[in-house]
């Protein structure tokens, strides 16, 4: 990869935008430039990054997984309920991770074994997992599990489960020097995913599926296993997001992360992944996530309301996409012109 290639890449553009954004917001509000504050503010959107990073891999295969936001709630409520039943919090966490991964396996299995549009499948599981998460406390009551409270476990479906142990809260509370634990986990997660995507056969197969699924099958790629792997990873991201949110809000709820769908997909798309498949990078998604997250924090800090931020984010998504599309069209146009004129001269 030569230097010119780097400068013309979408990731470099995102990086420049990120630096410019922090500089501009810093000029308006100097406290924003404090590196410790900046790192600390990543806690507010770490769940979006966790979910968006592996979703990139699903989108590269020309698929999509919108059920992640429900898996977050499912993970959270499972964790809480198992803990309430008297199990050690970290064992409860392991069980919650397992349940979340099973949900991902269901998605992957359905996508890999039928030709049904992934949007339809994950739309169905979005409802199904959310319903399971909401109904789980009542279901456990029905099955005869005894709760401590008089209202039974069903009471938790509205209030959420609080009073989680400090060792669990410390997962998002603590930091290594000035870097919060979740952000370290995000960087490690991104590095692993990046290696998987760019340095393994599995990763190359993801791109190939996105460009031409038929050719992938004829190339002898175990396409079903690869697809299941992609949806499993996406579920893993949602599970990590669910755990982070539970720890951060110190409460296990079935509806955690429900409003994160728009920012998650915005992050992946702004990161350069093509919704039609075949392109995208983990680095791009990471940078886009930071760009959007800091933008939100910065605008909130200078007193812009949440509603206006929603408008700005939506407009930004559309503008970024339109610019990219029109630039591609213009590039093609220029290439055609150049070919034509060189033919005339020749």
């Amino acid at each position, binding site marked *: 990869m030569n230097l010119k290639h780097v400068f013309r890449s979408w990731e470099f553009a995102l990086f420049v935008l990120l630096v410019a954004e922090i500089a501009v917001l810093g000029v308006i509000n100097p406290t924003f430039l404090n590196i410790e504050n900046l790192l600390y503010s990543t806690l507010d959107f770490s769940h979006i990054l966790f979910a968006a990073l592996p979703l990139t891999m699903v989108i590269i295969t020309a698929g999509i997984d919108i059920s992640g936001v429900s898996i977050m709630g499912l993970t959270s409520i499972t964790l809480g309920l198992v803990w309430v039943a008297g199990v050690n919090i970290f064992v409860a966490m392991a069980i919650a991770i397992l349940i979340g991964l099973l949900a991902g396996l269901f998605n992957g299995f359905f996508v890999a074994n039928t030709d049904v549009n992934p949007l339809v499948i994950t739309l169905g599981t979005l*409802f199904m997992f959310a319903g399971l998460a909401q109904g789980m406390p009542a279901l456990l009551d029905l099955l005869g599990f005894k709760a401590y409270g008089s209202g039974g476990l069903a009471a938790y479906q509205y209030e959420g489960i609080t009073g989680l142990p400090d060792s669990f809260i410390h997962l998002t509370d603590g930091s290594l020097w000035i870097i919060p634990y979740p952000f370290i986990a995000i960087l490690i997660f991104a590095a692993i995913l990046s290696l998987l995507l760019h340095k393994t056969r599995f990763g190359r197969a993801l791109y190939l599926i996105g460009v031409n699924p038929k050719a992938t099958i004829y190339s002898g790629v175990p396409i079903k296993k690869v697809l299941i792997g992609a949806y499993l990873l996406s579920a893993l991201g949602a599970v990590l997001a669910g755990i982070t949110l539970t720890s951060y809000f110190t409460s296990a709820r079935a509806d955690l992360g429900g409003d994160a769908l728009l920012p998650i997909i915005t992050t992946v798309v702004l990161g350069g992944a093509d919704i039609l498949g075949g392109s995208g990078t983990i680095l791009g998604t990471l940078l886009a996530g930071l760009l959007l997250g800091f933008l939100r924090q910065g605008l909130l800090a200078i007193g812009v309301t949440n509603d206006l931020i929603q408008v700005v984010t939506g*407009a930004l998504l*559309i503008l970024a996409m339109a610019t990219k599309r029109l630039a591609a069209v213009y590039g093609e146009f220029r290439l055609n012109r150049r070919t034509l004129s060189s033919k005339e001269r020749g």
Partner: protein
Amino acid sequence: MKRFFKSRELLIMLLLAVLIIITGLFNKNVYKFDSISEIFNASLTLTLISLGEMFVILTRGIDVSVGATAGLAAVILGTTLNLGWPIGWAILAAIITGTLAGMVNAFGITSMRVPPIIMTLGTLGIYRGLMRIITGGSWIENLPQSIKEPNRWDILHVPFFVWMTLIVIAITAYITLKARPARYFYAVGDNEEGAYLLGIPVKLTQFAAYTLAGFFAALAAIVFTSQIGFVSMNAADGFELKAIAANVLGGVSLTGGIGTPLGATIGALFMTAVHSMLIFLGIPGIWDNAFAGIILLTVVYIDYRVRTTIELQQRQSRIRGESGAVGGES
């Protein structure tokens, strides 16, 4: 007619009938005329939004902003009414708002070449944000009686809005089956490049689809504002996903070119009926989502199995037919 008996519409209608009959075994009240009428009445908002979404899905697009568009139109309706506008003007303002919101999507998708899911995700955020900015985040209450009145009208014991929606469905069904430009939606969705080569105005057709989605969302906004009598900030929240689910249930294919207004209507009716039947069975509302998801997945799975089996049979009969012809010649 023969095609109708093999169609998804019939499958869903049968499922709906089975659902209602089984529920009726547990709770006789289901069979009352009022209960059935009430299911229709409750499904109107989703039906109207789904009809608009249908045009977009037919052209192989997707619109996830329809719920937000309906919310925005409802806010405009409520705000103008509380400013003292006559009801006719307020309704017109709401319809214009919805249509314009659809046109913004259409412009971005056809002229700026933004992929539909990205464009409408963006406007989903924008319209929801605008709703709160216009109202300052508070609900719109104390609406004048003039907007709540139509909800009480009934003709032959059937609410006025049910009649209105039935007429809208009938018009839409007639036009999509008989009018030439309406067939463009199917052509564009089935094969965009082929449609272009045939001289069909592809961009204009796509533009019309998103505009119609906005228009229908505004109609839905008027109905639910009248039915509920206030506008909350969560109005029509999540209806975009329900509308897509209703279309898929009703046999409107996300790969474009296949589906009917009848299908979209029945899909929406089914989604609502599941909710109502759970209430009749005494199952708490928290299970709504789980049932909706399981039913959606079951239906698409059955459809997949039926489709692949039919394709396999056709291929086998073709092979057999060809070998028979060869045998006859020799």
